[in-house]
C-alpha cells in the first residue's frame, strides 16, 4: 500500500526522468546536427564523400571483404583457444613458489619479456619468413599457420600476464584456508584460486580478445588475404578508400558482441560481490 505522498513522489521522479531523457535526446540530436553540418560544409567534403563513402564501391567490395573476414574469424577461433590454454600455463609457471621451480620461473619470465616486448609485425616477419627459410623439414610453410603461430606467441605473453595479475589478486587467506581444508597445491590452484582469478580478469581478457580480433589481419603481411587486405586490393583498383570503411565497420560489428559480453559479465561480478 503506497501513500498518496509516495505516489506523488514517484510521479515526480518519473517526470524528472522523462525530462532528462528528453534533454539527452535533444542535446544528442543538436550535437549530431552540428557535427554533420560542419563536415558537410567543409570545402573538401564532396571529395571525401566520394573517396570514403561510395555506396557502389562499398557494395562491390563487400563479397571479397567478407571472404577475407571469414579467414580472420577462423584464425581468431583457433588462436584464441590456443592462447588461453598456453597463457594459463605460462601464468601458472610464473606463480610457482619454491626454489625447485626457479629455472621454470626464469623461462616463463623470459618468454613474457621477449614476446610482449617484440613488435608483433617484426615477430610475424621472423616467424613467417625466417622460420621456413631455414628449410628444416617438418616446419609448416603455410602463411596462415605461421602467422597464427606468431600471433599465439605474442598474445600468450600478454594474456599470461593478465592471468598472473588475476592469480596474484586472490587474497593469501584464500590459499591458506584451502590448504587448511586439506587441499593440495594443485587443487588449491584449480578449485580456489583460478575460478576467482579468471572472474576478476574477465574484462581484461575480453579486451585482449578484441585486440586479437583486429590483429588477426596482420598475418596478411605473410601473403594471406584477410578482410583488411581484401579491402586494400579493392582500394588500389579504383583509388577509393570506401572498402577500408566497409572493413572497418565489419570489425566494429565483430567487436560489439564481445563488448556487451564484457559489460554483462562485469554486472554479474558486481552483483556477486554485493553490488555497489
Amino acid at each position: 500500500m503506497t501513500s498518496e505522498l509516495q505516489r506523488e513522489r514517484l510521479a515526480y521522479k518519473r517526470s524528472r526522468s522523462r525530462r532528462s531523457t528528453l534533454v539527452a535526446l535533444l542535446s544528442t540530436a543538436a550535437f549530431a546536427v552540428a557535427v554533420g553540418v560542419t563536415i558537410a560544409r567543409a570545402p573538401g567534403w564532396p571529395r571525401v564523400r566520394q573517396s570514403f563513402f561510395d555506396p557502389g564501391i562499398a557494395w562491390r567490395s563487400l563479397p571479397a571483404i567478407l571472404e577475407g573476414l571469414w579467414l580472420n574469424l577462423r584464425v581468431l577461433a583457433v588462436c584464441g583457444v590456443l592462447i588461453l590454454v598456453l597463457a594459463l600455463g605460462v601464468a601458472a609457471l610464473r606463480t610457482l613458489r619454491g626454489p625447485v621451480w626457479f629455472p621454470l620461473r626464469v623461462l616463463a619470465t623470459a618468454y613474457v619479456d621477449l614476446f610482449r616486448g617484440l613488435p608483433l609485425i617484426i615477430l610475424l616477419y621472423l616467424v613467417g619468413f625466417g622460420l621456413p627459410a631455414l628449410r628444416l623439414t617438418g616446419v609448416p610453410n603455410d602463411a596462415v599457420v605461421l602467422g597464427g603461430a606468431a600471433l599465439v606467441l605474442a598474445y600468450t605473453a600478454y594474456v599470461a600476464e593478465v592471468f598472473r595479475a588475476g592469480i596474484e589478486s586472490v587474497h593469501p587467506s584464500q590459499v591458506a584456508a584451502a590448504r587448511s581444508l586439506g587441499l593440495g597445491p594443485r587443487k588449491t590452484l584449480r578449485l580456489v584460486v583460478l575460478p576467482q582469478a579468471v572472474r576478476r580478469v574477465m574484462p581484461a581478457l575480453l579486451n585482449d580478445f578484441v585486440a586479437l580480433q583486429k590483429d588477426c589481419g596482420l598475418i596478411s603481411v605473410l601473403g594471406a588475404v584477410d578482410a583488411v587486405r581484401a579491402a586494400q586490393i579493392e582500394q588500389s583498383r579504383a583509388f577509393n578508400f570506401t572498402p577500408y570503411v566497409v572493413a572497418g565497420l565489419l570489425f566494429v560489428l565483430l567487436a560489439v558482441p564481445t563488448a556487451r559480453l564484457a559489460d554483462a559479465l562485469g554486472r554479474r561480478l558486481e552483483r556477486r560481490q554485493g553490488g555497489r
Partner: protein
Amino acid sequence: MRVPGLILAVTAGLAVACAPADQATPPTNQVDGVACTKDKLPTLTPGKITFGTDQPVYAPWFVDDDPTNGKGFESAVAYALADELGYAKGDVVWTRVPFNAAIQPGKKTYDMDLNEFSITEERRKVVDFSAPYYDVDQAVITLSSSKAASVKTLAELKQVKIGAQVGTTSFDAAQRLQPEQDVAVYNTNDDAKAALRAGQVDAVVVDLPTAFYITNAELEEGLIIGQIPAGDGKPEQFGIVLDKGSPLTPCVSTAVENLRADGTLAAIEQEWLSVAGTAPELK
C-alpha cells in the same frame, strides 16, 4: 547578337594575322589556356616543381633510393620533364609520398607523382594522369631451385603458387592467370621476394624491368620464367599522377608528348631499361 559576332570575326582575323609571330615560341608555352612556363605554372612553390615518389624506391626506376640524383628511369624522366617545362635542376624538389597518401582526397603535397602508376580508367576518376611515359609488360620470376623453374607455358604456370605486391597491376596480372591456388599478396616486392626465398610461393609477378633487376642483382638464383600477355591486348602504361583537375595536367602531358617526339624518352629508356624486352612471352 551582331556585336559578339563582329568581335569574334575581328578576333579571328587578329589571330590569323598574329599566327606567324606565335610560331616563334615553343608549343608547350600554352595548353588549354594555361601558360606552361616556369613563372606562370601554378605549382605548390612558385618557381619550383615538386615531384612525389614513394620511399624506398627501387632500381631500375630510381638508383640508390635517391630520386634527386637523376639516375634511374623515372628520376631521369622527371628531370627531363622539368627541363622541358623550363625548370633548372635546382628548381626540382622531391617529396616522399607513400602509395595511399599519394591518392588521398585531401590537399596534395606534390605537383606530380612518379611511382610506376599504371593508368586505368577507374583510377582516372579520382586522379589526373599525364600522357603515358612508358609501356610496361608483366613478367614472372622464380628461383632456379623452385619447381616453377621448369614452367614453360601459362597452363603450367597456373599450377604453381604465385605471389605479387598489393595494389599493383602485377597482382591483377597474376589474378588474370586464374591460378589454382589463391595469389599470395604482399605489402612490397621485398616481402614477395622473402616469401619466394622461403619457398612460400613458387613464383612472383613483377613488371619486366623490375624482373630483370631482381633476377640479375637481388636474387642469387633468380630467373625470369617469361612475360605474361597483356589483359585485353592493350599494353599497360605508366602515367604521372596529378591532383584531380590539376591545372598542370595539360602542360605535363604536352611536355611528355614532346619528350617522346624528340626521342628523349626513348633515350632514357635505352639508358635505364635496355635490359628489358628480351624475356619470352608465355603462351
